[in-house]
């Protein structure tokens, strides 16, 4: 059994989901890669941003 931290789970989720989004939503390999990186950045970035928002609200 894997005991992944929340952040590890976010990274894994973002990696796999971005790969599928990149391949399915764009036509050329170059644009697939760029869109995959874009999605990955947004997934991880929004998770970090929302974590800080919740941290500040909870204080």
């Amino acid at each position, binding site marked *: 059994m894997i005991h992944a931290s*929340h952040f590890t789970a976010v990274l894994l989720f973002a990696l796999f989901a971005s*790969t599928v989004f990149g*391949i399915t939503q764009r036509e050329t390999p170059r644009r697939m890669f760029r869109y995959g990186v874009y999605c990955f950045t947004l997934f991880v970035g929004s998770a970090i941003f929302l974590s800080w928002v919740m941290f500040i609200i909870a204080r």
Partner: protein
Amino acid sequence: MRYSQKGMATAPTKTAAGQNAQQGFVYLPLIAGWLFPGAGHFLLRKWGRGALLAVSIIGMFVLGLAMKGKIYTGAQDILDMLGFVGDLGNGLLFLLSRVFGLGADQVQVTTADYGTKFIVVAGLLNVIAAVDAHNLRTGRKPE
């Protein structure tokens, strides 16, 4: 004057291979892609894309199981129903996990909650991948 035969031979071969892939039942890549992640793209000879899709979706499903994620078995309320629909997107992976009794019945630890979401999202991503294979097959998406 000497001509290179290399370029002249590859173009018709590629066209013939593409035409062979375009023959047959139009929904086959969609169904194959749903049953096994990446299979729809494999049928269309998109080996790289199919392999990446298979690794991503199967990896997500297996990680979900490894985190003791829950496999939805029925629909008691609307959230269970939505989770069940998401799980069904995994095709044969879902059926095999049911047959072999994989996955937890109850979510007992925090990671199991993550795992449950991994399994549901793997199913939803598999549906997107299968529809992409169908779009490639019908020509709606350029190759």
